[in-house]
């Protein structure tokens, strides 16, 4: 909710090879290393999910009614949500689907949607920010107002509301229903509310860099605008962009899960952490394991991204608080 507060990104980095310096600092930062490692594990899990399907001889969608107790609220047989050698994280109540596989495939869905949305938001944000900051005047006024208006939207609410609208639209273009429309819609909706944060920061940076000597110099020798923007200004923005992106990813992950949890996201049987949490609602009191696993996974991944984001920010701008 208050992401805006933590997005305070430092001044432009100056000096000799700031990238090297930042890299040195990150390499010394234990928190950063542990976070990166954690993220790596999740990424690996997501990438190798099909291997586990092969190891466990089942698929994330396969029902296992034999693992459930039909009388006791369809709870998994055995302790801790039916954790066993066959089902490492237990099974899902009602269906007996393997929770570990759903978790692994869920990491796939969550990460791919969050990363795509972040990428899209970054591209839009950077382009708008550059244009707005570089050209100024009327273009800036229009774009800044647009950002203001987007930020005035109650984002979750609006995202929920426009999902069926966009879905309908895609369907009317012949895209099949289900996740084939849901996932692109989610990426669009998430990036729709993500780009202004990036654009705002880029714009501010561009305005401060625009008048610097090296830009003036390039301008004076008659460099084209495109050259100025992409060759002279953009390379000097990578630090604040990187920090914003790093801190944007966890927001995207949680927003994706929230949208799905609220029913506007990924649809069963596709695995997704938000969907798992939603499905666990009727069972949280009798099978808390099933609630805990996706919830804790989400927590770990978001925490790792947040910590890494903080580290990246500190490394790029040591003056920022620590």
């Amino acid at each position: 909710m208050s992401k805006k507060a933590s997005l305070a990104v430092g001044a432009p980095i100056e000096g000799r090879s700031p990238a090297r310096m930042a890299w040195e600092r990150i390499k010394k930062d234990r928190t950063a290393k542990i976070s990166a490692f954690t993220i790596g594990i999740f990424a690996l899990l997501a990438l190798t999910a099909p291997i586990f399907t092969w190891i466990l001889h089942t698929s994330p969608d396969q029902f296992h009614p034999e693992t459930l107790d039909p009388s006791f609220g369809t709870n998994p047989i055995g302790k801790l949500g039916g954790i066993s050698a066959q089902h490492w994280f237990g099974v899902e109540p009602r269906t007996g689907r393997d929770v570990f596989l759903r978790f692994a495939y869920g990491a796939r869905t969550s990460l791919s949607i969050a990363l795509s949305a972040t990428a899209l938001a970054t591209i839009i944000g950077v382009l708008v920010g550059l244009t707005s900051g570089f050209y100024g005047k009327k273009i800036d006024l229009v774009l800044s107002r647009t950002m203001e208006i987007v930020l005035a939207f109650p984002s979750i609410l609006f995202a929920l509301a426009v999902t069926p609208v966009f879905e309908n639209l895609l369907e009317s273009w012949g895209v099949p229903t289900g996740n084939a429309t849901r996932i692109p819609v989610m990426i669009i909706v998430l990036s729709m509310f993500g780009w202004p944060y990036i654009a705002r920061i880029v714009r501010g940076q561009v305005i401060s860099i625009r008048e610097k000597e090296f830009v003036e110099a390039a301008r004076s020798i008659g460099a084209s605008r495109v050259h100025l923007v992409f060759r002279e200004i953009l390379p000097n923005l990578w630090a604040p962009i990187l920090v914003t992106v790093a801190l944007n990813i966890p927001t995207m992950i949680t927003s994706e899960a929230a949208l799905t949890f609220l029913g506007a996201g990924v649809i069963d049987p596709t695995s997704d952490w938000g969907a798992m949490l939603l499905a666990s609602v009727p069972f949280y009191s009798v099978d808390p394991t099933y609630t805990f696993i996706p919830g804790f996974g989400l927590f770990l991944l978001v925490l790792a991204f947040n910590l890494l984001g903080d580290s990246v920010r500190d490394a790029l701008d040591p003056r920022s608080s620590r």
Partner: protein
Amino acid sequence: MSLKKKALAVVGAAALASTALLSVNAASAATTFTTPVAPIKGAVKGGTVTILAQGDFEHLDPARNYVGGTLDFYRLFTRTLTQYRTVNGKTDLVPDVAADLGTTKDGGKTWTFKLRTNLKYEDGNTITCADMKYGVMRSYNDDILDGGPTYAKDFIANPTNYKGAYTEPGKDLPSVICSPKGDAITFKLAIPVPYFPYVTTFGAFSPIPKAKDTKQNYELRPLSSGPYKIESYSRGKELVLVRNDKWDAKTDPVRWNYPDEYHVIMGADQNVIEQSLISDSGNAKTSVSFDTNIITNLSKVLNVAKYKDRLFNFDSAYNRYYAINVDTVKDINVRKAIQCAVDFKSILLAAGGTSAGSYANSTIPKSIKAAYRNFNVCGRDVSKKPEAQLDQAKAFLAKATNPKTTLRLAYRDRGVEPLRAAALEQSLKAAGFTVIMDKYPSSDFYAPAAKRGGANEPDIIQTSWAFDWAAASGIVYALFDARTMTPEDAKSNQSRGDFADLQKLFAKADTSATAAQEKILGDIEQSLIVDKAAHVSVYFETSHYMAGSKVGGLQVDGGYSTLSVLGAYVKK
């Protein structure tokens, strides 16, 4: 889940019900229950009982009311000719406005009911036989008074082709006759209806003074003849009932009047009402809901003692089944393979396990003894061996001369229905079928599922049926009689069955007496499931209703298969 669907399902049945026979508690018709109902043990007067409802009543006009919970509730201010009385877990048919349960001398073609003469409306006027007749006459205008059952119009003889009190205000309905003294009412029927006293429990048989009738707006302020009257009614928000001091307990064999007021608060959603009732906080202590079955929190409430005490579990009329389309799945062996591939266990698990329902081999419930058959499906007792019989399924599929291995499964996107469909999909796949999952939006399912012909016609339809009253006639005619179908529309005969041998049996049943008819209908269902393999009943749903800790006197009403608030009281 709202009981509204029950009513919707029933509309189809009502049209065919002309030859149906009511079998529940038919014996009690012989006895009369004219004395006031016995007090509920421990009940005290005073307080307010709150009813939490997800939405507004469909209709409060007696002639338009056809929804389980509302049928129970509207009795608080509407008396009908006859009515159900539930006390100590036993439901009987009793005379209400009538003074007896009716008499017939011609085997059910003419029915005469004596009337109580000392009954009053809330405005102090006396209830007359003419008002009872007017109630029936206005119900003929079902174009304006839509939504209700059409029994009166269907059963009562109509030689003059009467069109209703609004369409033909000056005309009379000669088949309904009031005695000169006004102490008896006679109905001449088009056909013999031996169970007519059950039909007269419906709202068309309630007194409405012509002067007070406001047509379609009558439901906003129906005139009370019961122990309570409407104090205020804000559609979609709140209905307040207060005592009607003109009502005399001594004349009423059905109703109690313990609370000072009933408040119906509308507009909260399923989960909000569930949680409110479970929390037992604030006015939820004195609350109950008749349109909110506990679903989301079922596992929790079933497993915690303090919730269990406030939970009412009873079999609903809902049967969940699969219709196998015989038009598209022509080979009997393929249909048998499908039948064997149905995994009862994983389907019921997906629906919530044995606390959410009980396995059923047949859509006729065991409680309808005259028609129920304890046959095996795919050669096994499904309640003992609910798992899919994959080997048999594969064997049948191998035997098929006209094999069809790609099946379209039509289901509705609502609640656990997609999960149940997924459970079936998996066992069908395991048996060697390829399944195309056709998910329909909740609001637009029955019509496309029943559409005959076209490339997208489903092979298997995941659907359900709720009987209006506990008789095979309320089930078999609607689901399996080919005469209901048109070439384009299978209506409620989703399996599209049109078998010569069975249609012969239907013809025989049409003219048979009660017990024989029920037996024939039972045979038809058994044949359709076992021989024709066109239908797979999976389970009957269990209802779970919850009440606040301070509400007493709630009972499961046998008449409407719902939790009745008639005897509710606020515990001191």
